[in-house]
């Protein structure tokens, strides 16, 4: 036994000759297996992510006109995009969406997660499910439902307002539509983000709370100083997903277009704009340029955020 232990403790001798060749063979076999494992995914990944992106870039350098056919125009479509007030307006709108809706949604998710984790709420298990259920509802149906609920003549919200005696605001008017859409998105995704944070909270090791326990710190203090910092990775994850999701907004403008045609223009969101360019204006090449811009810009923003967040995390003791 002592001999075996000693054997384990002594460092392995440097490989020599035959043993070196054998080890490399084993290594090679492992490496080959590793590449085979990832091959299916990587092939499809390249096919579904990179090739379309590259193709979009390629298409964006051409132009097809009803009169005149196809011609090469280089980066003219991108110059056009940067000067296009509708595209920029759509981007700006998404920016507003981002700085208003995302913090609200994630704060709510965090508050709910903390509240449910604190154990001071009765029926927390059922509540968890109730809050999460909207995630299982497709965005299409959520928009149809809320579109009806918002209806100024027959929607229940308006009905209740009238019953209470005050004139209901037109939730589908162009001044309110962004807020109304923010509501739909928040309703749909608070639960999902909450669950991510809640699961992270549940995994916090007990020791972290011992000191607080001894000090007699209150719940809110505990939440602020211990819980939230401990689940930073989870919060970061939700932030990144929310950013990506915001710039991809399509379902809501597309489905509300019919019932609020003045509030929702064809360039309401960049994605919706690309869709309308491709399928209504028949300007596929410009649409490709917009899609390419959108894809690369968001990827860059998200990557930068993640990079900085990781850096600051690594620098922590």
């Amino acid at each position, binding site marked *: 036994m002592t001999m075996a232990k000693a054997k384990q403790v002594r460092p392995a001798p440097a490989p020599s000759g035959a043993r070196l060749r054998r080890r490399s063979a084993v290594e090679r076999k492992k490496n080959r297996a590793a590449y085979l494992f990832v091959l299916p995914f990587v092939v499809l990944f390249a096919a579904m992510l990179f090739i379309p992106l590259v193709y979009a870039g390629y298409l964006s350098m051409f132009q097809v*006109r*009803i*009169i*005149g056919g196809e011609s090469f125009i280089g980066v003219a479509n991108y110059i056009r995009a940067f000067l296009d007030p509708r595209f920029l307006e759509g981007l700006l709108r998404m920016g507003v969406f981002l700085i208003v809706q995302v913090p609200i949604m994630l704060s709510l998710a965090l508050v709910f997660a903390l509240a449910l984790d604190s154990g001071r709420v009765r029926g927390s298990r059922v509540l968890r499910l109730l809050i999460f259920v909207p995630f299982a509802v497709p965005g299409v149906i959520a928009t149809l439902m809320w579109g*009806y609920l918002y*209806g*100024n*003549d*027959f929607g229940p919200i308006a009905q209740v307002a009238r019953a209470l005696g005050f004139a209901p605001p037109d939730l589908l008017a*162009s001044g309110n539509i962004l807020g109304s859409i923010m509501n739909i998105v928040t309703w749909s995704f608070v639960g999902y983000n909450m669950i991510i944070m809640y699961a992270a909270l549940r995994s916090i090791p007990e020791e972290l709370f011992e000191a607080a326990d001894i000090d007699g710190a209150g719940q809110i203090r505990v939440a602020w100083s211990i819980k939230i910092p401990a689940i930073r990775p989870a919060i970061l994850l939700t932030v990144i997903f929310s950013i990506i999701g915001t710039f991809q907004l399509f379902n809501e403008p597309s489905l509300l277009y*019919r*019932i*609020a*045609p*003045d*509030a929702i*223009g*064809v360039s309401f969101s960049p994605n919706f704009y690309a869709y*309308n360019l491709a*399928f*209504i*204006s*028949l300007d596929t090449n410009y649409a490709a340029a917009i899609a390419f811009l959108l894809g690369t810009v968001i990827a860059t923003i998200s990557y930068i955020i993640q990079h900085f967040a990781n850096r600051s995390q690594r620098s922590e003791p």
Partner: protein
Amino acid sequence: MTRKASRASAGVISGVALAVLLLSGCSAAGSDGPASNTVTKEEFDKAMTTPTDLTFWTWVPDIQNQVDLFEKAYPAINVKVENVGQGPPHYQKLRSAIDAGSGAPDVAQINFEYMDTFALTGSLLDLVPFGAGELSDQYVDWTWKQVARGDAVYAIPQDSGPMGNLYRSDILTAAGLDAAPVTYADYAAAAEVVRTKTGSYISNLAPGDAGPVIGLLWQAGVDPFGYDGAETVNINVNSDGAKEVMSYWQDLVQKDLISVDPDFTDEWFQGLAGGKYAGWLTAAWAPVFLSGTAASTSGLWTAAPLPQWKEGDNVSGNWGGSADAVMASSANPIAAYELARWINNEQEPALKFSTDQFLFPTLNSVLADPAFSDQEAEFYGGQKVNALFAEISKTVDTNFQWLPFQDFVTSSFNETIGKAIAQKGDFSAGLDEWQKQLVDYANQQGFTVTTS
């Protein structure tokens, strides 16, 4: 009828001429070749007796009735009717399918205003080789002009949309009016009376629908579009005439005498059902869309001519009007052509379109048919409404033209003048904005643009 993007009016086409032609053994050769060949009787018989599946994209309500009759006449042919949307969604899907080379139907409903748009891209099959050229004098002249381009015929006309004033006689009576307003000046006064005495709006101006607005401009003699069939387009939506018409409506809208709700939505249907709107300036095909949600108002409506701009005038405009076309990509062109022709050319189905679905016919033999002209429509409380619309349709200016990129015309309408309507703002500025967008787009697409 040409409606804004969403509505398609089915046309009724009688096939008497074609039947005569075929029976007389008019020879044709080559069923799938280019225009120079024509279809022989043998090829026709073979195609119509071989089991075939056809897909037909249309949104005309209850068109299954006409299709059933067709299937009875040709038992070997099986037709699948699909409603892929009303107006713009239908056209988008059609175009995507054509571009993708898969999934396109054999026959599709095409509004008159979209005919150029699809013909220009070579998506429609020229129907002359199948005998369509012989049908021309069976149809109302100007509707045939909408489907014929040079020597080619791209579709069989189904219906047109002469516009009139459909109003709730009970509401107007309650407001103390016993007849529909004759001039627009009368109409404005009546709008006030109806609103104050009954709370209803005398009509609604939809902010997301280019069709009725263009129809009203049409009535006023405004000619906003022109296309020479090649590379030149004429765009003039902000002419003085157009602005004059729209400022009239702006006045009424801003006084809250005309509502601005989006049409063809569930809320709007409920508005019609509940009497929020006392009338609708619309085309002859309107009632078929009221037979669902607004069915409870059947019997309370009366039709009258549109109000006139000048005392003593009698002109109208057109909203909608469609034809059935065969897609160039169809694998069964003979059977597809026969489907498009048969339901719109044989007397029985064509007449049915008018008597059952209230589509306004383009087929002369239906217009002359007493079953049509004498029909006492229950929806209109027994009024002989067809005779009225037949008179109205004679007053429609037949020289109206469209642009070959209609999808963009309608979508930019929503963004510009449509938005002005919805926000009860400056309609004149809205028209200017629309003009600018259309001219920019036409230039960008390589057209030569004139603006007179």
